[in-house]
C-alpha cells in the first residue's frame, strides 16, 4: 500500500476514515477490522469485521507505530480496530499545550 503523507483511506467494512500524517519508511499493510483499508472514495467491500477487532476508532485520535514511523489521524470515527502488518496500532497521546490562540 502506498501510504503517502496526506493520502486518505477508508475502512472496507465500516465508516472509519484516516489521513496519513507521517508516511511509513517501509511497505506496510494497513487494516481496519481485519480488512485492508481502501483509498478514500472507493466502495467498501461489505465484509464483516473480524472477531476481536470490533473496537471503537474515535474521530480526532492519532495512531502511530514506532517501527515503521507511520502516523495516522482518524478523520471519521467508527468500528474496526486499526492494525499495521497485523499488529494493533497504538493510540498516540496528545500533548495539550496551554492554548494561546
Amino acid at each position, binding site marked *: 500500500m502506498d501510504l503517502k*503523507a*496526506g*493520502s486518505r483511506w477508508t475502512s472496507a467494512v465500516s465508516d472509519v476514515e484516516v*489521513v*496519513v*500524517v507521517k508516511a511509513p519508511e517501509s511497505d506496510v499493510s494497513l487494516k481496519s477490522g481485519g480488512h485492508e483499508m481502501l483509498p478514500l472514495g472507493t466502495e467498501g467491500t461489505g465484509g464483516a469485521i473480524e472477531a476481536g477487532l470490533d473496537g471503537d476508532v474515535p*474521530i*480526532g*485520535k*492519532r495512531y502511530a507505530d514506532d517501527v515503521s514511523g507511520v502516523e495516522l*489521524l482518524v*478523520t*471519521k*470515527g467508527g468500528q474496526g480496530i486499526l492494525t499495521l502488518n497485523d499488529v494493533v496500532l497504538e493510540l498516540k497521546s*496528545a*500533548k*495539550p*499545550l*496551554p*492554548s*494561546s*490562540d
Partner: protein
Amino acid sequence: MNLALLLEMTAGGAPDRVAIGSLNGGITFAQLLEKAQRAAAYLEASETERVVMLDVNSEALPIALFAAGIAGIPFVPVNYRLADDRLRQILARTVPAVSVTAEDSTSRIQGIEGLEVMTRAEFLDKAEHPGVPSGRFVAPEEIAIVLFTSGTSGDPKAALLRHEHVTAYIVSSVEFLGSDEDEAALVSVPPYHIAGISAILSSAYSGRRIVYLPQFEPAIWVDTAREESITHAMVVPTMLDRILKELEAQNSTLPNLRHLSYGGGRMPIPVIERAMKLLPNIGFVNAYGLTETSSTVVF
C-alpha cells in the same frame, strides 16, 4: 494533510455548532465548510494561483482561508495599513491572484497586471453559489499560507507556511472537539498576523466559536465580550491596557472570560498586575513565537 481537513472533521463531528458569529444567526461548522467548498469551486474555475485578502476581519476570512486550502492554492492576507506604493509592490509579487478586498480599498489596487480585484460582498456571493470542488490531492508540502513580514530591514519577506506545518501544529497541540459548547473566542488581531490565522485553525479543530471584531476598539471589545459571552481572547499588550481602562471607567468586569492570552510585544508589569487584580478569575498566558514557526513555540 490539507488544512481544510481540520474543518471537514469538525463539520462531520459537530455540524450544528456555531463556528463564526453570534449563537443566534452565526454560521455553523457545516455551513462554513459548504461555503468554503463553493468558494473553492469558483477559485478552481478561475484558474487563479493565489487568494489575497485585503480586508479587516469578517466571516470572509475563514471562508477564503479554507477555500484556498481546498483548491490547493496559497492564501495571502496582506496588511491594509501599508502605504499604497508598498501595498502595490507586494501585490505585484502575488499575481496571478484574486484579491478579496474591502470595499473602500478597491481603488487603491486597480491596474496591477494579473490581479483580479473582488469586493468582500462579491466573494461571499461566490461562496453562496452552488459548486463542487474537484477534490484534487493537495500534497502536504504545498504552500498553504504566505505571510509578509513587516520589512523593517528591506523589502518585506514572505514567510511560507505549508499544509504540513500548520496541521502538525494544530493536531499535536489541540484536542479535536476539545472545546465546551459554550466556549467563544473574541478575535481582534488582524488577518495578516499569524495569530489571526492560527486562531481560525485551532478554533475550527477544537470546535470553538469565533466572534470577530473588524478592528480593535476598547469599548466595542468590552461590550462584545459581554454580549457574546466570550470565554477566550488574544490581545497585544497595548490592547490589554486600553481594555482595562475601559473596564475601570465602566466600573465593571467580564464574568464569562476565562482565558486571556497575550503576545506580540513585551507586557509591562504594571499592566498585567492591574489585569490580574481586575480580572482575578482569568487564566493569563504569555505566548511567543515566530510567523515562520506557525505561531506559538514558547509559553
